[in-house]
C-alpha cells in the first residue's frame, strides 16, 4: 500500500547512513568504544561569549508563573496531538548532517557541520534550507527543549555526548584514523538526534527547533559549558534531584505507571547488556578482519614458496580470496557498529530520558502534595483567626486560602496533564521503538545476506582453482 511505501521510504531516507562510502577510512584499527560514557565532560574553553542565549537551559522549577507563560503549549488539546499522530505517516521532512569542517586551529578549533533540511511542511519558510552548526549548538537546542518540555512529561530526545578525548585529538589536528572515525561517529549521531527530535510532533513545531534548522545565525549556546555558571547550577540541580527522588514516596494510585516504570528499568538493564555484547562483537570482527588480512599475506608467501605449479597458483588464489573476505569483514563490522551498536546506545540514552519524565511526574505530585499541605495550614490559620479580633489578618488569611486553593487546583491539573502526556508519550515511544528496531534489524539482516552472497561468489570462483591442482 502507498502508506507503507511512504513509511518505508521515509525510514530509508531519514535513517540513512553511508556505511559503504565510509568503509575505506574506517576500521583498520580496533577502536575501543569507551567514549560512550554518561559523565559530564569538559568541553573546550570557548571563545568569548557575546550574548546570553535566551531562555536559560537550566532546569526550571515549576512555578505558577512559569506555567502560565507556557500556557499555549501546556493547554494544547489532546485531540490536536492525536491528529499529529495520524499525520505522521505522511510526515515529510528529511534532514542530513554532513561535511564536517574544521574551523580554527589548536585548542580553540571546532568542527562545523552542514545541516540540510528538505521538507514540504508549511511551518518551514522554505522547502530546502542549509545551515552551518557546531556541536555546542546542538547541545544548546537540547537544553532549551528539555527545559521547556520535560517537566510536562514529554520525552525529549537526548543529545549526543561530549567527549574530551575525541575532540582533543581532532583539535590537535591529528588526521589519523581514530579522529576520522570519531568525527564520523559524531556526525551520524547528530543526524539521528535531529531526526528523532523532529519526529516528535510537539518539538517539530517548536520555535527553537525551527530557528535551529532554518536561521543562518544562531546565538552561541554558552551555557552548555560544564564549568559555566549554568553548568554548575545544572550539576547542583542534578544532585538535588537525586536526593529528592530518594525522599519522595509517592502513593501510586495508577498501576499503569508502576508497571511501566518497572518495565523501563528492566529494559534499561537489558539494553545496556546487549549494547556491551554488540560492542564486543564489533571489536572481535575487526580483529577477525586484521587476522584474515594477515593470513592472506602469509598464504601468498606460501604460494610463492610452493614448487608445485598448480598448487602454488591455487594457494595464491586462496590468498586473494581471503583478502577479499577481509574486506567483507570490515564492511560487516561497519554495519554491526553503525546499525546496531549506535542504535542501542541511542536507546540506552533515550530510556534515561523516559525515566526522567517519570521522575518529573513524581516531582509534580510532590508539589501538589506540598500545596495541599500548605492549604491545610492556611485553613487552620484562618480558623484560628476567626476567634481573634483581627479583621485585616483574617482577610489576608482568606486571600491566602484562595491563593492556595488555586495552587492546589493547578497542581492537580498539572499532575493530571503530565500523567496524560506521559501515557501518550510512552505509547508513542514504544511504537517508535518497535519500528526503529525492526527497520534497523531488517537492514542489518540484509547486510548479512549481502556478505554471505559475496562469500559464495568468492568461494565459487576459487573452487575450480582448487580442483585444478593436479
Amino acid at each position: 500500500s502507498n502508506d507503507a511505501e511512504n513509511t518505508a521510504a521515509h525510514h530509508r531516507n531519514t535513517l540513512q547512513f553511508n556505511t559503504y562510502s565510509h568503509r575505506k577510512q574506517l576500521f583498520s584499527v580496533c577502536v575501543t568504544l569507551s567514549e560512550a560514557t554518561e559523565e559530564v565532560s569538559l568541553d573546550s574553553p570557548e571563545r568569548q561569549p557575546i550574548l546570553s542565549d535566551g531562555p536559560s537551559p537550566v532546569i526550571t522549577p515549576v512555578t505558577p508563573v512559569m506555567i502560565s507563560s507556557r500556557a499555549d503549549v501546556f493547554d494544547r488539546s489532546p485531540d490536536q496531538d492525536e491528529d499529529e499522530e495520524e499525520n505522521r505517516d505522511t510526515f515529510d521532512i528529511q534532514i542530513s548532517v554532513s561535511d564536517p569542517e574544521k574551523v580554527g586551529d589548536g585548542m580553540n578549533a571546532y568542527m562545523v557541520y552542514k545541516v540540510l533540511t528538505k521538507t514540504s511542511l508549511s511551518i518551514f519558510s522554505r522547502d530546502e534550507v542549509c545551515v552551518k552548526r557546531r556541536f555546542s549548538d546542538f547541545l544548546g537546542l537540547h537544553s532549551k527543549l528539555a527545559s521547556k518540555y520535560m517537566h510536562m512529561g514529554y520525552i525529549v530526545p537526548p543529545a549526543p555526548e561530549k567527549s574530551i578525548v575525541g575532540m582533543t585529538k581532532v583539535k590537535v589536528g591529528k588526521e589519523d584514523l581514530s579522529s576520522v572515525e570519531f568525527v564520523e561517529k559524531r556526525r551520524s549521531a547528530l543526524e539521528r538526534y535531529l531526526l528523532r527530535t523532529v519526529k516528535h510532533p510537539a518539538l517539530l513545531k517548536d520555535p527553537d527547533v525551527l530557528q535551529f534548522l532554518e536561521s543562518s545565525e544562531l546565538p552561541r549556546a554558552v551555557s552548555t559549558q560544564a564549568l559555566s555558571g549554568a553548568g554548575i547550577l545544572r550539576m547542583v540541580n542534578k544532585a538535588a534531584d537525586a536526593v529528592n527522588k530518594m525522599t519522595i514516596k509517592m502513593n501510586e494510585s495508577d498501576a499503569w505507571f508502576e508497571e511501566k516504570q518497572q518495565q523501563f528499568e528492566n529494559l534499561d538493564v537489558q539494553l545496556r547488556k546487549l549494547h556491551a555484547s554488540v560492542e564486543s562483537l564489533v571489536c572481535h570482527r575487526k580483529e577477525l578482519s586484521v587476522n584474515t588480512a594477515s593470513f592472506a599475506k602469509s598464504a601468498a608467501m606460501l604460494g610463492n614458496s610452493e614448487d608445485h605449479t598448480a598448487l602454488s597458483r591455487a594457494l595464491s588464489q586462496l590468498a586473494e580470496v581471503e583478502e577479499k573476505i577481509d574486506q567483507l569483514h570490515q564492511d560487516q563490522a561497519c554495519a554491526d557498529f553503525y546499525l546496531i551498536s549506535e542504535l542501542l546506545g541511542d536507546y540506552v540514552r533515550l530510556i534515561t530520558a523516559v525515566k526522567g519524565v517519570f521522575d518529573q511526574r513524581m516531582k509534580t505530585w510532590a508539589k501538589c502534595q506540598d500545596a495541599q499541605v500548605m492549604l491545610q495550614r492556611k485553613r487552620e490559620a484562618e480558623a484560628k483567626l476567626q476567634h481573634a479580633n483581627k479583621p485585616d489578618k483574617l482577610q489576608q488569611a482568606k486571600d491566602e486560602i484562595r491563593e492556595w486553593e488555586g495552587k492546589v487546583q493547578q497542581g492537580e491539573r498539572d499532575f493530571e496533564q503530565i500523567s496524560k502526556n506521559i501515557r501518550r508519550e510512552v505509547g508513542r515511544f514504544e511504537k517508535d521503538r518497535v519500528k526503529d528496531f525492526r527497520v534497523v534489524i531488517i537492514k542489518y539482516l540484509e547486510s548479512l545476506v549481502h556478505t554471505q552472497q559475496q562469500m559464495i561468489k568468492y568461494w565459487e570462483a576459487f573452487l575450480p582453482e582448487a580442483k585444478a591442482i593436479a
Partner: protein
Amino acid sequence: MTSISEDSDKEKVRSVSVDLNNDASLVIDIPDALCERDKVKFTVHTKTTLSSFQKPEFSVPRQHEEFIWLHDTIVETEEYAGLIIPPAPPKPDFEGPREKMHKLGEGESSMTKEEYAKMKQELEAEYLAVFKKTVQVHEVFLQRLSSHPIFRKDRNFQIFLEYDQDLSVRRKNAKEMFGGFFKNMVKSADEVLISGVKEVDEFFEQEKTFLLDYSSKIKDASAKAEKMTRSHKNVADDYNHISGALNSTAADNNTAFKKTISVCVLQKLEDRVASDQELKLTELLRYYTRDIQAAKDLLYRRARALADNENSNKALDKARLKGKDIAQAEENQKQCLQKFDKLSESGKKELTSFKARRVVAFRKNLIEMTELEIKHAKNSVSLLQGSIEILNSN
C-alpha cells in the same frame, strides 16, 4: 568421563593426510576413546590379512605416551634413516575447554539459567571437538605407518598394535632426557651443516632450498590461520551472548525480537560452522608443518651421512699417507659410502612420494573446505532471507 564413538563418518575423512596406496592388508583405526581427567585412552583397532600377526582382528587400549614411545623408537632406528618418519601426534590439549569451564564456573552466579545452559552446551561441543581432533591425529599417525611398505613391518609397530598388556613405557630418566636434549642440539647444529655442506646432487640441492624456505612459510601460515580461526570463534561467541541478551528483551512480546533471536542463533551457528571449515585449513597447515619438519629431518640425516662420508674419505687419504690402519680406514670409508648411497636413494623416493602426497592432500582439503563454505553460506542466505520476509510481513 567422556567417550566417543566414530561411525562411518570416517568416510568423509576428517583426516588431512591421504594414503596413496589403498592396501587392505593392514587396516588400523581408532573407533573410540575414553577421557579420564587428564588421560586419554585410545582404542586401537586392527584388521589384517598379514601372517605376521597372531589374529586377523584385535583391539588394544593405548595412551598418548605409548604413541610417543613408538615414534621415538622408530626415529632412533638406524635403518630408517633414509625414510621420512611420520610426525608424532601432539599431546591432547584440553587447555582451551578447561579454561572455559573454569570461567563458566566462576561466572555462574552472574548468568541467567538459559545463558548458563547455552554456554555449557558450547563448552561441551568444544570439548568434543578437541577430543575428535586428537583421536584423528593419533589415528593418522598409525595409518601413515601401516601404509608404508617398510614401517608396517617394524617389530615395535606390531608390538604396539598387538600386545594386549600395558607396554609399561618407562618415563624417560634423566640420562635419556638429557640425551634427547643433546640430540636436539645436534639437530640444530645439523641445520648449519645442511646449508654448509656442498651438495653434488641436483635433486637434493633443490629439495634443500625448497624445504628450508617452505618450512618457515608454512609454519607462519599455520600460525596465522590459527589466529584467524580463533577470531572467528570469538565472533560466534559474541553472537551467542547477543542472542541471550535479546532473549530477555523479547519478554516484551515482540515477535520482531523473537525472530531476531532465531537469526542470531543461526548466524552464530554459521559462524561456528565457518570456523569449522577454517579449522580444516588450520589442521591441514599444522599437519604439514610437522610433516615438512620430518622431511627436513631426513635431509639432516643425509647431510650428516654426507659429512661422515667426506670425513671417512679424508681419513683414508691420511691413513694411506701415513701408511698405517689402511684396512680399517678403507672399511670405514666403504661403510660410510654405502650408508650415504642408501640414504640418498631411499631419500629421493621418499621425498618424491611426499610431494605427491602433499599436493593431493592440499587439493582434497581445499576442495572440501571450499565446498563446505559455499554450502553454509547458501544456507545462511536462505535462512536470513526467510527471516527478512517474516519481519517485513509483520
